[in-house]
């Protein structure tokens, strides 16, 4: 594989195949944890760690696993890394751990992670799988930060905790709550579609 190809493996997850905005995967954490940009980033990084690690392991042992137990095996592998993240976060960044709550163990079932293990790592070599995991993970993180940022700005009038003083009050609370998450994501996806289309045409 050429270098450009490697690069594209890495970058396609940003926009063209962005897990959240384009492939609509991993929607639950994308919506559930993005009350602020920081939370989004935390979740994104945690997911990326799991993604990369499980991609590595899966691509290493892909040929050892019989088809019928493929999914259970992958899941166990993923769950292991998730638990590691869970335990470490709980131990060392308890505030973030609390904010992300249930969604950390739920990384296990994040369709992005399993999807990549299934679709990419189980068919490609270790290096590509790492790149893929990194790319997808970064894309995922990017998406979560954007969504978290938008929600934070609109919902609390601040970004990364810095008050922007754009609203006389606190901001539009809806965006901190569930409905705002859906609505914000809806419009962001619409915009991403537009951008992607432009790119395709160009």
């Amino acid at each position, binding site marked *: 594989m050429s270098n450009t190809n490697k690069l594209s493996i890495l970058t396609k997850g940003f926009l063209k195949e962005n897990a959240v905005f384009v492939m609509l995967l991993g929607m639950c954490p994308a919506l559930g944890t993005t009350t602020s940009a920081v939370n989004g980033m935390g979740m994104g990084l945690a997911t990326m760690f799991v993604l990369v690690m499980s991609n590595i392991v899966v691509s290493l042992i892909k040929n050892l696993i019989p088809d*019928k*137990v493929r999914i*259970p095996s992958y899941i*166990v592998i993923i769950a292991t890394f998730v638990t590691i993240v869970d335990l470490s976060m709980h131990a060392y960044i308890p505030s973030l751990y609390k904010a992300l709550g249930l969604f950390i163990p739920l990384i296990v079932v994040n369709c992005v992670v399993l999807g990549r293990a299934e679709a990419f790592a189980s068919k490609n070599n270790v290096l590509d799988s790492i790149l893929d995991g990194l790319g997808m993970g970064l894309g995922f993180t990017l998406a979560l930060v954007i969504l978290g940022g938008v929600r934070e700005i609109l919902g609390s009038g601040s970004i990364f905790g810095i008050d922007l003083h754009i609203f006389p009050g606190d901001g539009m609370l809806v965006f901190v709550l569930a409905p705002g998450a859906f609505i914000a994501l809806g419009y962001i996806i619409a915009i991403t579609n537009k951008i992607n289309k432009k790119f395709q045409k160009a």
Partner: protein
Amino acid sequence: MNIILLSIIVLGVVGLLAGVILYFIAEKFKVYEDPKIDEVEEALPAANCGGCGYPGCRNFAESCVKADDLGTLFCPVGGNETMKKVAEILGKTVEDKDPLIAVVKCNGNPNVRKKTTSYDGAATCAMETALYGGHTDCQYGCLGHGDCVDACSFDAIKMNAQTGLPEVNQDTCTGCNACVDACPKNIIELRPKGKKDRRIFVSCINQDRGGTAKKACEAACIGCKACVNVCKFDAIVVENFLAYIDPNKCKLCRACVTVCPTNAIWEVNFPPRKIKTDEPKKTQPKKNALENQTKKEEEAPIDLKNIIKNDNKKDNEIK
């Protein structure tokens, strides 16, 4: 007890149980599905356009796997190449099919085919057809609302604002048949692309008697049989006052094109005629007013450029 040991035992037991149960269930409830179906499906273009006559690519793939002979199966989008791939997967053989392309068999632009009424209903061809024969005196001709354009999922057919007729882009048309199905007037036909992409066809489907047809549209085929007489290959038949050129017999000699008194025969992608440039005025006294507009009166066929987007490739070919 050592926590590591314990967890290994616990998870190991769970894992083992899961494995064993899964195995038995899988054995018991085995469904055989030919893995080749997946392979074939992957080889297909995944356009899911239905051009093959099946509801989707997977159904087509299934049929390919089941079929003894791929002769009757063809994916118009992927073309010969795809079919070869499919054949390879299945260890079967296919013959090359002449690629098909949609041609619009109506030549009645507003200058030659006058509007007689003004239609005020929903702007789709199907809807106008449901009402009456159309807003001109030709009850066969194109209505110009572009149902065919909407049907094409490859953006290969566009309305020409000047002629009010659809035009097919030969580079993007896959011959999927969608427009043919969509046209309520059955104006569009899939014809072989022809050698060097050259083809000749009668661009009219008016079956009225000559006089009636001519009155309705100056560009109509009047069934005069001039082309039949001039064709050396018996490629043209006139039935119901309408000529039809059999693409399989047509040798692209172009003899018929010039004799047609109404310019109803179109040629596509031919180089301009040199010798006859001053002749046509006599043999073709009737000119498409449109040609005047586009200033190509000298070479009747060139106005066919309209049918194809004027891209570089074409220019090269013509030179």
